[in-house]
Every structure is written in C-alpha cells, then in structure tokens.
C-alpha cells in the first residue's frame, strides 16, 4: 500500500473518456451490420428470383421439374435434363478429384521433404486462382483433342458393354466436362484438406510411430480418423463449386438436353443453359431460365446443409 498513487487519481473507478470507450460498441455495430447485410442480400435474392420465375414455373406445373423437353419456341420448359447434367458432371468431377486431392494433401503434409512442400503447395494454390474461362478454353483447345476425345473413344470401345461407357464416345460430353471440373476443384479440395491434415496433433502421429506403425499405418490409423470431418467439409466445398461452375462446363459439356446413362454422350447443365441462352431470351423464356437458377440454388443449399449435418455427426461421434 506504500506506493498507491492516491494524489493523482481521485477514484480508481473513474471511467475512461473519449473514443477509446466508444470503440467497442462502434465495432460491434459495424460488424453486426455486415453480418445482417449478408442475410438481407440472401433473402432478397431468394425472394426476387423466385417471384420472377414463378409465372413460368406455374404455367409449366410439375413438368418444369420432371420434363426433359426444353423448347422455348413452343413454350415448353422442362429442366430435368439440366439437373441431371449438373449432378452427373459434378459426381464425375468428385470421383476423379477426391483421390487426387487427398494424395496431394497427404504427400505435402506427410511425405514430401520440407523444401518441396512450400513451392508445390503454392503452385497448387495458384491453380485455384486461374479463371474458369481459361480452364474452359484450355479444355477445348488442348485437353479435348489431346486427351478427352481419344480417352472417350477408347473407353467406349473397350468398356462400352457397361452402360455408363456406352458409345459412340465423345470428348464433348458429361465426361469431358467432369474431367475439367475435377481439375478445377482439385486445388480447392487439396489445399483445404492440407490445412486439416496439418492440424492433426504431432503428438498423435508420434504415438502411432512409437507403437511400431509404418507411415501408411500412421496415416490411416491416426491422421485420417482425426481429419475425416474436415476433409468431408473440403470435398463439399469443392462440390459446391462444381455444381455452380458455368463457362468451362458450357464449353465442354456438348450442349444437348438429354438424359443418358452413358457419361460419354453430350449433355447440358443448369449453369451452362443459363449462360448460353440468357442474352437472347425474352418473356417466359427468361423467367424459366431464372427458375433454373432458383432450382440450382436450392440444390446447392441442400448439398451444403447435408454436408454440415454429416460433419456434425462425425464430430459428435
């Protein structure tokens, strides 16, 4: 009690004055407004697009969703073929991208020597920044003649007896679009997975090693179980991008509204029909295209909610 500054401060509880006291409430208000604005924009978007599309959806009835006939000249708007194309190309992309992405992420976190990790990780991240139209053009001018077309022909000739590879095979197809989508989402999935894998405590890895685990046993026994939920989250983000991807897919999917079991046939997707026809559409046609957008939005939300529920269940367990 000897050095209490009793002569300079009358009471120790005098509040501070001026801006420093105001900073907290102001900051709270600003960030709160930003958060609320997101909700407002989202709600506004849902309402306006649904209202715009409603007349077209109503006049088509259930055939808007369950018909595959899309014929603006006769006023028939059935979007099932586009939904099918969007889901199929995205699934193809996931089947190809997930193993590659996990391989890259595991290599960069567990296998690669230190001096390789940084540069390779950086290059993978750079791939995520390439605009999708560049991927699309590269797909059309390089990948299509060099890889997709020959591969599609080869697949249909050798595995054509399996319905999903039935010929005649074409590179401009669900398959071609799926491959380019896969290349586009590999950087996203692998760099998010890499962060998740890096967060696995080294204590647990050491525990596995000390019990006589090989590197493979350490990864499957200690790293992957711990990272499972995060990896699923990464895959779902990649799926979200694949579902909504427009230009690259429009260039490669073949633009034919049909539902075929064979992934080597041309198809169409929801995002690419909007991109291809929006500028020339009028009246009901444009309303129907907005309706395609509404359904795509709903699918994306359902996928995200499902993913979140899955991740939650895993974290609980």
């Amino acid at each position, binding site marked *: 009690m000897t050095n209490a500054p009793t002569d300079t401060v009358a009471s120790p509880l005098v509040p501070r004055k001026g801006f420093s006291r105001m900073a907290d409430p102001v900051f709270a208000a600003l960030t709160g407004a930003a958060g609320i604005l997101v909700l407002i924009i989202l709600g506004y978007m849902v309402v306006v697009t649904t209202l715009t599309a409603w007349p077209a959806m109503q006049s088509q009835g259930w055939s808007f969703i369950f018909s595959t006939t899309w014929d603006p000249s006769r006023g028939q708007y059935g979007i099932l073929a586009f939904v099918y194309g969007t889901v199929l190309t995205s699934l193809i992309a996931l089947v190809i991208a997930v193993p590659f992405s996990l391989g890259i992420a595991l290599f960069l976190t567990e296998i690669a*020597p*230190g001096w390789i990790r940084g540069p390779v990780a950086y290059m993978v991240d750079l791939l995520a920044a390439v605009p999708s139209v560049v991927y699309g053009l590269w797909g059309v001018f390089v990948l299509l003649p060099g890889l997709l077309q020959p591969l599609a022909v080869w697949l249909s000739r050798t595995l054509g007896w399996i319905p999903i590879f039935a010929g005649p095979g074409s590179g401009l197809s669900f398959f071609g679009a799926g491959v380019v989508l896969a290349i586009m989402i590999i950087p996203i999935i692998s760099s998010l997975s890499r962060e998740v894998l890096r967060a696995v*405590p080294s*204590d*647990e890895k*050491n*525990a*596995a*090693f*000390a*019990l*006589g*685990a*090989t590197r493979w*046993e350490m990864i499957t*026994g*200690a790293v992957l*179980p*711990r990272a499972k939920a995060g990896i699923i989250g990464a895959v779902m983000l990649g799926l979200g991008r694949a579902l909504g991807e427009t230009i690259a897919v429009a260039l490669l999917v073949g633009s034919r509204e049909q539902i075929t079991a064979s992934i080597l046939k041309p198809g169409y997707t929801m995002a690419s029909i909007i991109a291809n026809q929006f500028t020339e559409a009028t009246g009901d046609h444009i309303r129907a295209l907005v309706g395609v957008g509404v359904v795509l939005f709903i699918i994306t939300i359902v996928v995200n909610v499902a993913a979140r529920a899955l991740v939650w269940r895993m974290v609980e367990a």
Partner: protein
Amino acid sequence: MSEEPAFRVRDLAVSYGSQVALKDVTLDIEPRKIIAIIGPSGCGKSTLIRCFNRMNDLIPGTRVQGQVLYHGQDIYANDVDPVTVRRNVGMVFQRPNPFPKSIKENVAYGARINGYKGNIDELVERSLRGAALWDEVKDNLNRSALALSGGQQQRLCIARAIAVQPDTILMDEPASALDPVATSKIEDLMQELKERYTIIIVTHNMQQAARVSDKAAFLYTEVNEAGTARWGVLVEYDDTSRIFTNPRDKRTDDYISGRFG
C-alpha cells in the same frame, strides 16, 4: 551385472543438420531396471531417449553416430527397420496422447497393426490391468479415451504401449503434466512394471529420479569457446544412490544440490 545388458550404447553422437546435440555417450542398460536420465534443460535428455527407439529418425536432417546395441544387435545397422525397433521398445510421451477413439480401441491399436492374432478383449484387459487402470475403466471400455483425466490418459498410454508386448518402455517426462496424486500412481506403476520391463525415464524432477530409479545418467551442456554452439554430454552414470549422495563429478554435485540448472 551377470545378465546381458538390454542396451549397450557406445560413443553415441546425435546431430540435427550441422548442429551437434549430444555426444560422447557410452553406457550399458541392465534389463528390468529403471534408468533415469537427468540434467538441465537443453542438455539432450530427450534426444538421448529417442535414440533407443529411433524416434529421432522422424526429424529430417538427424544424424546418429556410434552404436546402440539392443540385445547385442545394432539398431542403427542398415538392415534394421526402425518400425521393428519400435515394436520392441515402447514409448510414453510427456503429454498424454491417446487417440480420439474408445479406450478399448486405443489399447488394441498397436496390437492390431502388429498383426496380433489372439483374443483382443483379453489383451485389452491384461494391458489395462498391467497399467493399473482396469478397475477404473472396465465398465466404460467403449467410452472415448479423451473423457479420461490426464493421469488416467497417461496410464492408458502405458497400457497401449505394453499391449504391443515390448521389453523396454521409454518414458519422456511421463508425469510432468500431471498432478501429484496422478504422479505418484505413475511412479507406483513403474515399480510394478520393472518386474517385466526395462524402463528408461527422462525426468526434470530430482526427487522423482531419486525415488524411482535404480541407476541415473546425468547429462550436462557443454559450450564451445566462442559460445556459438552447445551440446549435451554424459557426465556421470552410476547407481542412483551414489549419484545423489556421493557423485564423482563436481558438475553432478552442483546440479543435484541445486547450485545451478
């Protein structure tokens, strides 16, 4: 001293990149004894203990020179797989590190990857009893290991280590993250374990070393003349009673009696 040593260490030196971390270590470790490695921070205690199961190999750039003979065989010989070494020499770490799995799966993990063919339930019970944890967890074997207290988790890690049926257990400051009650349980457990296992323990706690160990190795840090590099050396290795009552080296005496460190 009639029995063949579990480990013979000859002129061991460890460096990380160009930095020497430890050198001039020569000692024999008798089986079914508790050997304490003591010394000030940064003297290479953890580096030394990690030489016995080749955990240092996991740090890129590590170089180990000299010999570590395990029952007469050099574990750093070219034809020796570190995985095999670690299946015979278990390890318990400073912080309890159970996997985010059930108690049972934690104990069974090592046995499973080692291709254990026997009855897993029996092995789990035997290992948990061996680690003095069975009575506390026998009704909750499927509960997450992360729900246990720190002391229980550390005993679970000991159970997990002995389930692989090693003959040596390394303990790198196994009680430094635990409260006194949990610490004394670990210490009691070590006395039971040494009937079957050779135990090497790193500890910062002088009383603990004096209480539990049969022999003690005192490491100390040496500095080069320019003061730019420091490394650990083995100063003295002897019966614990002698180290703590009548050490040969002045540095040991100073450290034991608390004059520095």
